[in-house]
């Protein structure tokens, strides 16, 4: 079954689909529902699934986001593992009651401690002019409302590994794929037990001078910035959080206590975004270790324009991350 060491280069979205397909082979309770999934998905994540698993388990749906998530909650309560792809995370505001009240609270409020597995795919981020109602990164909602887990894969291998972890998780998972990464390639383990544990971050680049906490679309930009900064003698440690709920506090604090400086970088709007919580908690837990304020490099607090240049100007660039790195070392 497991082909332990084999790797294959594939698209990020294909890796997500591979994780899904592998789990569907062994778990008959998994089904996939979403707009366009039966013909492979709008962005290819569900390619081939309908052929392999049939149209009973890979089901197209109308333009009904509230229904999609609500039915997932119901199916989950009776022991299924629904996978819903909403196409764009922004559409989840239509299903807010179903995600944050029903999925997040049903077990709690009825007091019956049963597993509730469900994976809601909420692709986030700009992708070249999709506009103010398609391009936002709203993962902070899953942090504020209790009862859910939240993951954000930053590369193809994680896309597979986190999808598999999400499908084996007895709690509902918001799985934020990254729109701009959809058609980028990466090395993906073919091991059918390759799991990226939910709640564990990873150091992508070690460094002694400052800790840069990021995830999703900003991991690559942060790594690029770190290279530039290294040329200037500034060694930034890059942590890819991978999960926002739960956050890997052990990893975060170990690093910050060592570097004494922290930056948070994300594409989501700055105000009340994930970086707010991360910064608030770091200063609560490591105040006396900090030599400088914790900086946030984040999306501008505007609805996103569609025009490509304007859109890019609204989210952190490599240059802005570099500038923040220089700035924090100058304090």
């Amino acid at each position: 079954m497991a082909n332990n060491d084999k790797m294959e280069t594939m698209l990020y979205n294909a890796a997500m689909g591979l994780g899904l397909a592998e789990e569907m082979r062994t778990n008959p309770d998994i089904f996939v529902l979403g707009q366009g999934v039966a013909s492979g998905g709008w962005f290819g994540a569900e390619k081939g699934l309908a052929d392999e698993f049939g149209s009973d388990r890979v089901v197209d749906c109308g333009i009904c986001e509230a229904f999609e998530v609500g039915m997932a909650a119901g199916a989950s309560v009776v022991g299924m593992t629904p996978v819903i792809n909403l196409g764009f995370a922004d559409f989840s505001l239509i299903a807010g009651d179903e995600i944050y009240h029903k999925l997040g609270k049903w077990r709690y409020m009825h007091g019956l401690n049963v597993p509730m597995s469900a994976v809601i795919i909420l692709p986030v981020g700009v992708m070249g002019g999709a506009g103010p109602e398609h391009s936002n990164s709203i993962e902070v909602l899953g942090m504020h409302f209790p009862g859910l887990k939240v993951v954000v894969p930053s590369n193809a291998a994680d896309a597979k590994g986190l999808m598999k972890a999400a499908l084996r998780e007895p709690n509902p998972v918001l799985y934020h794929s990254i729109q701009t990464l959809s058609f980028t390639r990466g090395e993906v383990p073919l091991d059918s037990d390759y799991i990226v544990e939910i709640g564990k971050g990873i150091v992508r680049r070690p460094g002694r001078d400052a800790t840069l906490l990021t995830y999703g679309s900003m991991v690559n930009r942060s790594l690029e910035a770190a290279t530039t900064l290294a040329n200037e003698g500034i060694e930034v440690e890059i942590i890819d959080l991978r999960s926002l709920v739960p956050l890997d506090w052990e990893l975060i604090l170990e690093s910050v206590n060592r570097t004494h400086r922290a930056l948070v970088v994300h594409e989501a709007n700055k105000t009340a975004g994930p970086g707010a919580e991360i910064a608030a908690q770091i200063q609560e837990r490591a105040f006396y270790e900090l030599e400088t304020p914790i900086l946030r490099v984040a999306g501008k607090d505007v609805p996103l324009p569609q025009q490509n240049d304007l859109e890019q100007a609204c989210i952190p660039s490599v240059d802005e991350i570099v500038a923040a790195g220089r700035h924090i070392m100058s304090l």
Partner: protein
Amino acid sequence: MPIDTTLIGDMYRRMSIARAIEQIVEKHTRKARISGWWHPGEGQEAVGVGASAALNGEDYLWYQGRGCAWAIGKGMQPGPILGDVLGKVSGATGGKGGGVPHWADYSLGIMGEGATLGSVYPLAAGSAFASKLRKDGRVSLANFGDGTASRGTFHETMVHAATWKLPLIYLCENNELLVGTKLTDVCPTADIADFAKGYGIPGIIVDGQDAVAVYEATLEAAARARAGEGPTLIEAKTTRVQGHYAGDPQNYRAKDALANYRDPLAVLAERMAVDEVETIAAEALALVQAAYEETLAAPPPDHSIIFKDLYYGQ
């Protein structure tokens, strides 16, 4: 096919229990404060009990929280119901609950309530979808009020349930009121069953004061569902005897609002022998009284349950 007398007796028993709970909770809330609000179901007991009687034990019920006839109809005991109302460990939720019910017992097919109205439609479609995939022959029932038929999820869910021919029953309790607003002030039709037309599914109106009528309509809808013929919308015309919540002064309501009210217990009793009616009623009262006393004696929950059930295994 004349209806089984045992079944009638059983429905009468459950309706009597539900009514006794109504009365005891009403009395209780008049002297003591409970957590949240109790939404009295007096007058509507025939709907939940009649419909539940037509379901199998393992069929899935997703209800809206007026009264307790659905929970009793589907097999829950008075203890866990009262335990939640009074916020005691003996409640179905272990003591987290209060006036807005979240009673569930998955072994009885009682799947629970969403307190944001209209949330049960897609959830019921989810369990119906699971049954279709698993071919387990189960039916899912979504219960809701007339006011809640306007929610967008009503439409989104029925569009799919009708297309996929899900084993789903929509069961509306039309008491012509949403809190203090008259249905016809906010709805273009007085008959919720009219909404079935758009989806090409049957829209059946039944006398909601008559448990037998509700039972029969539900049985037929369940048979259709199990035969793969898809969803049915049943509208039971009924009467909310009390206020929206226990204590509601109901200033909005006409003095003669209950002029044509028919007590569903009296309606069902007409089909029964007098002494049977009396025995069952007395037994129900005693059962509920005992459960009430046990509930009063039960302890409140420990604060440690605040984090219980947030995540699986927690």
